[in-house]
């Protein structure tokens, strides 16, 4: 499907934002998922509520809150700019932040369910064999939750590709700079005769989504087989 330069830019930017956001969110999501699944501490319910907040808030509200907090004049944005020279608002990096925040609950949820499905008795057995908690996680828990991590990553990636409300509120819709795939489709539909360009991008969105799901299914099956030991591929 042929695309004009503006559409290419939007597609490329969306892929860049989604990949960066997924990779950055992955370790934090895994840590939070582990805390929620296995941790026993005060404020667990609060953490859970906070993580899930972007799921229930209108995305525009999340975007506006990001703008207040991370804008050049906002408390966190000001700090980041003055200390590290980092600007998030109206930049593609801000789109990454919005994608991380919006995809985070979905990633945490999938990973938390996977961790909860691991029998704690196996982790206890590992501990009695002399494995420290970090080692238990790395050698027992982690290999068993790889399908969950993959599922969570695909969810996060898909959310990042599709994120619109928070992104457009936080970083606007500047072609070539912050115009992601959904923002571009939205823009094309605002001008007469833009339907063809929109449809081309819609098709690309479908291709990306299907590829991501198929890839993760394939990987998850390989991992599951490996865990169950049906396939002896060493």
């Amino acid at each position, binding site marked *: 499907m042929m695309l004009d330069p503006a559409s290419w830019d939007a597609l490329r930017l969306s892929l860049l934002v989604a990949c960066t956001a997924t990779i950055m969110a992955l370790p934090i999501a895994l840590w939070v998922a582990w805390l929620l699944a296995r941790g026993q501490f005060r404020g667990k319910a609060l953490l859970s509520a906070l993580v899930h907040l972007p799921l229930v808030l209108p995305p525009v509200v999340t975007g506006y809150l990001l703008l207040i907090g991370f804008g050049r004049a906002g408390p966190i944005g000001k700090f980041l700019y003055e200390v590290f020279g980092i600007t998030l608002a109206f930049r593609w990096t801000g789109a990454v932040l919005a994608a991380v925040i919006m995809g985070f609950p979905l990633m945490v949820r999938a990973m938390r369910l996977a961790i909860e499905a691991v*029998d704690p*008795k*196996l982790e*206890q*057995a*590992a*501990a*009695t*064999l*002399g*494995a*420290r*908690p970090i*080692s*238990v996680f790395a*050698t*027992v828990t982690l*290999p*068993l939750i790889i399908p969950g991590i993959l599922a969570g990553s695909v969810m996060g990636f898909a959310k990042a590709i599709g994120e619109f409300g928070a992104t457009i509120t936080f970083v606007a819709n500047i072609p070539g700079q912050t115009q992601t795939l959904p923002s571009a489709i939205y823009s094309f539909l605002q001008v007469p005769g833009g339907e063809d360009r929109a449809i081309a991008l819609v098709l690309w969105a479908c291709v990306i989504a299907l590829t991501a799901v198929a890839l993760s299914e394939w990987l998850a099956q390989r991992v599951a087989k*490996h*865990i*169950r*030991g049906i396939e*002896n591929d060493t």
Partner: protein
Amino acid sequence: MSLDLQITKTQGNFTLDVAFTAPIGVTAVFGRSGAGKTTLINAIAGLIQPDAGHITLNQTPLFDSTKRINTPAYQRRMGYVFQDARLFPHMDVTQNLRFGLRHAPAGATGPSLDEVADLLGLTPLLNRRPTDLSGGEKQRVALGRALLSRPEMLLMDEPLAALDGQRKERILPYLERLKSGAAGLPILYVSHALEEVARLADQLVILSKGKVAAAGSIFDVLADPAVAPLVGVRQAGAVLQATVTEHGADGISTLHLKAGTIELPGVAAPIGNRVRLHVLAQDIILSRERPEGLSSVNILRVTIKNIRIGDGPGAAISLDAAGDQLLARVTARAVQDLNLTEGQSCFAIIKATSIAASSIGR
């Protein structure tokens, strides 16, 4: 080398309140379900924290509520064999065994992976996955994995409970070999099967409703009339040690006891071997006179040590057979009719077929 503990732990309306010492050798913890066996073993392993008390292994405190010591499980060096094996499903047998080895403290010595695999008959299974193993094979791998973590003590929580009789028979010899091989390790063996306990244990601790109801050498505890109701009157019976002296052509073997010889069928141990006999109390008949013309030839001269009249119609009587201890169960009426008294000499008749083959351990 020993484990010494005194702990209390309350969970809901159940309280575990126990104190005992487990020396080198097998200390069996016997009790019905709900007696607190698993709570006890998990507290020793460090998987649950007692409310108060202390747990000391070889003079090293693992838990002490007054000194606020609570060593985490991964530093306790307890080789724990769980009832459900708990092999890591994403690793093959070799990797499971290596897991123990890899996390053993630096400098700790012990048998190599090959030696453990050989001892437990795991060599043909090394490349298999846990899903491809039978229950008995899983338990052997779990035992090997625990041994390779170089433990200072072994904890075994009903390792045979999930296995049927035949599989049990196949794994018991490995446990017996381990007992004679891994010298210098205290082994805590939790079980609700008196057969296994009678066969393996050196020391016996009987738990009842969270408390120690009896403790001591297996020979003393199982010969104690007061213990009979705790283990169940049908299962009650003393453990004897005998030496195999002859295998007859008709399948009957002769075994030597301190008080004489007895003849039993189905003894597999070679001549000269020491075997254990679990003689059920209900299979002993007492007679004031040496009986004549009986089909059983297993007649021992014994002295009555202690008579305990139970709540029901039964009475448990401990007997001394030239230093060996026996436990007999007769009716309270028989005690009266025969005029049995403590210190009296009489004859015990043991039915040969009453000793099940499975209770003839090495």
